[in-house]
């Protein structure tokens, strides 16, 4: 067993051991039966014809129903674990990750950036939003028992709660070319004070939202998107998470993916009542810049009562959550947007 360093690891390991036991049981059972029959009923004379047994309905039903029940149990357990892993947590520390042949880049909410390393606070729920600049990669931390593909052209998310300090492996698990096996790194889990010290010492730039605001101006988005609906485009303030009415009559929720699409492929969906004048920014912005602009748009919404330029989920980074055990996901789908929840998209 690799180290158990996240809130999923214990349950995962129990499940794994249960299946190992089940496999051992069936393998030994079947092999032993076969070997015993083989020896006991070995052929004693050339002309021997054993008594024929056609089959037995009760036996057939038994060995259909029992494996079926076992299988359904395994399915249910696996599905439960998966549901936890892929349902977004509340109040998580949000980190943005990009994969690129052949390295990992991470960006913390307060602006710290790292390459092939990721520093995490102990006991705090962490949510990663990830995308790729080129091919498919997969972000894999064996000690946390989590893995999610990082797909170009879309965002994927994953989350976990580190429960043990130390340094753990980070692997790229989806084959991505020549240096696939070199696309590895370190996950460093630190307790509260060490982590804070690291945060202070780490090379720090602007927070993503601040940087996003800068790009919003330098790319001239603000020429059209003003604070009120006075500009040529719709106002983006206070819009995040709300429903947008489209020209073709349908509605769509303004989430990260929708903003990203609006920037890179504005023609795909047009907001009701506005002309098709927004140019595409395809080729002018990188995935990381798009992510920063998204953070900015998130920061000016929902509703402008929150301070501008603070990421939505930016509770003081690194503050330990109550207990690791409390880090279970809420499991509800109807999450209030005002708490900084993002709808899942992958």
């Amino acid at each position, binding site marked *: 067993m690799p180290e158990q360093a996240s809130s999923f690891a214990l349950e995962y390991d129990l499940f794994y051991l249960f299946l190992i036991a089940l496999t051992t049981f069936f393998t030994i059972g079947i092999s032993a039966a076969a070997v015993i029959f083989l020896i006991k*009923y*070995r052929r004693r004379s050339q002309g021997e014809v*054993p008594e024929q047994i*056609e089959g037995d309905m009760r036996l057939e039903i038994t060995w259909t129903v029992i494996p079926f029940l076992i299988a359904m149990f*395994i399915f249910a357990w696996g599905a*439960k674990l998966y549901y936890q892993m892929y349902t977004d947590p509340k109040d998580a520390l949000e980190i943005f990750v990009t994969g690129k042949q052949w390295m990992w880049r991470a960006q913390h909410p307060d602006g710290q950036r790292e390459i092939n390393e990721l520093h995490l606070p102990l006991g705090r729920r962490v949510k990663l939003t990830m995308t790729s600049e080129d091919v498919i990669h997969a972000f894999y931390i064996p000690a946390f028992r989590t893995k999610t593909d990082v797909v170009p052209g879309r965002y994927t998310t994953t989350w976990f709660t580190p429960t043990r300090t130390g340094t753990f492996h980070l692997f790229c698990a989806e084959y991505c070319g020549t240096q696939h096996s070199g696309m590895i790194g370190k996950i460093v889990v630190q307790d509260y004070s060490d982590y804070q010290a690291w945060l202070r010492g780490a090379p720090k730039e602007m927070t993503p939202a601040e940087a996003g605001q800068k790009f919003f101006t330098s790319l001239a988005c603000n020429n059209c998107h003003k604070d009120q609906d006075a500009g040529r485009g719709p106002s983006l303030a206070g819009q995040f998470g709300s429903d947008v009415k489209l020209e073709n009559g349908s509605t769509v929720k303004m989430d990260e993916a929708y903003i990203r699409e609006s920037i890179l492929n504005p023609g795909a969906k047009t907001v009701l009542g506005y002309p098709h004048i927004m140019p595409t920014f395809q080729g002018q912005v990188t995935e990381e810049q798009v992510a920063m602009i998204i953070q900015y748009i998130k920061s000016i919404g929902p509703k402008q009562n929150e301070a501008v330029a603070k990421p939505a989920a930016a509770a003081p980074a690194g503050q330990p959550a109550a207990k690791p055990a409390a880090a279970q996901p809420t499991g509800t789908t109807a999450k209030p947007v005002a708490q900084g929840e993002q709808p899942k998209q992958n």
Partner: protein
Amino acid sequence: MATEVMETTESRVNYLNNGTTVKSWLLTLDHKRIGLLYLFSISFFFAIGGIYATLIRLELITPQGDLLTPEMYNRVFTMHGVIMIFFFLIPSIPAVLGNFLLPLMLGAKDVAFPKLNLLSWYIFIIGGCLMLYTMLSGGIDTGWTFYPPYSSIYSNSQVTIAGVSIFITGFSSILTGLNFMVTIHTMRAPGLTWFRLPLFVWAHYATSLIQVLGTPVIAITVLALAFERTLKIGIFDPKLGGDPVLFQHMFWFYSHPAVYIMILPSMGVISELIANMTRKRIFGYNFVAFSSLAIAVFGFLVWGHHMFTTSQSMYTGMVFSLISYAVAIPSAIKTFNWTATIYKGSVSFDTPMIYALAFLGLFTIGGMTGLFLAALGLDVHLHDTYFVVAHFHYVMVGSAVIGYLGGIHYWWPKITGRMYSEFLGRISAVIIFIGFNLTFLPQFVLGQLGMPRRYHAYVPEFQVLHILSSAGASILAVGFTLPVIYLAWSIKYGEKVGPNPWMASGLEWQTSSPPPTENFTYQPVVTHEPYEFENVEEIKQARQAELQRA
């Protein structure tokens, strides 16, 4: 099964000596000869795939990755996977044993479309030559799964030619499946009803169904990939508006059912081996027969279990997981029925039976580790690790190849008219079993510890297990080489055998060994259920002889 006429003397003219020129082989329409053509072709590809496997295992002895460059290593495992799957395992049992035996088992003179049958061999050879060309001009480095956008944009290797090669080879598989389905529907001997068919035939029917319904989808998928690559069209490339995950859906829509193309024929072989080596009718014949069909049909509904972490929807993931468990049930039914068949049988220890036993144990392990992977929460950790590599080698090598070897040994006297050395047969079966487990058991542990697959270099803590695995692979290589030698030897020097050396039941054992060109010198008529050993003439004679002696 029995026929009205019994043939005891070996016919003078058989399919082997009826024309000995190269031309008579290359233009033959005889299904038995075509089966042999396939036997040589796929053995050749197996050897190449095996050489690649050897390179993989040599490289992985040390963690640094010092034997091969990363580019070379990536090409090596890709070519290993592609050749083993598309050019060895998928055609193995159907195209060799299926071709040879189906018409014999059905009491027919040939398959329904003999010309198509030869054509599909030529198509296979064309595809194979293209793959060899790919290999010689540098190979491909995409993994056998060809995921874009790596394969379509970033890779600098021969992806287009390899795609075309697989496209072409796919048609060989489709035509074989089509031919078999029509043959089974229309060419059965009088009296041979569906429930009198040997289970081998049922398994091949199910296999053909998958070949016919699944293979076209992979064909169009690799074709699209080749277009994307050559013309720079945004079919799957997200930069041009395409969706790489759509490729994965289309790829696995074929490639999951394809794993049942590999295992179902092997299951058919195992049914024959166990029934005939224990002289017992398969326990629960109907259940075993229908479970083949169930596997073929349900097998089409689970492809998404290869995509649990690839940003597929969580809900769809659950559906795919659930159905994956449904498809495990027919496999479980088969396994239990085979074991029950041995009970109170008259079990022989001959080589084919050793393979059948190995199959039972290894398939249980391989199949049940599939259950780990189908469990959503576990697959998150295990996906793309050596656990998956171990799982599929257990089912593909430990089950499908073992079944193939068992079948080759069992029908060898029928194919060649000669018997191999039983002693060497048993020894190498045991060597393969030991070597196999030593190679792939450690890989389960590696995967659980977090070793990702397709890694050219790895972190040092995994080295011990990798060394064990490489040691096992060298034993395995010996085990696979031995049969090649003694089987080849037996063609010339092996003891000659009569029509039915195993005293087995089944129409194929009632014609001479090797069979005459049109299989039977008379029209067989079936009046009995399958696996009725009281009616096997050779057993009757043996019993008579024993009674006289007593």
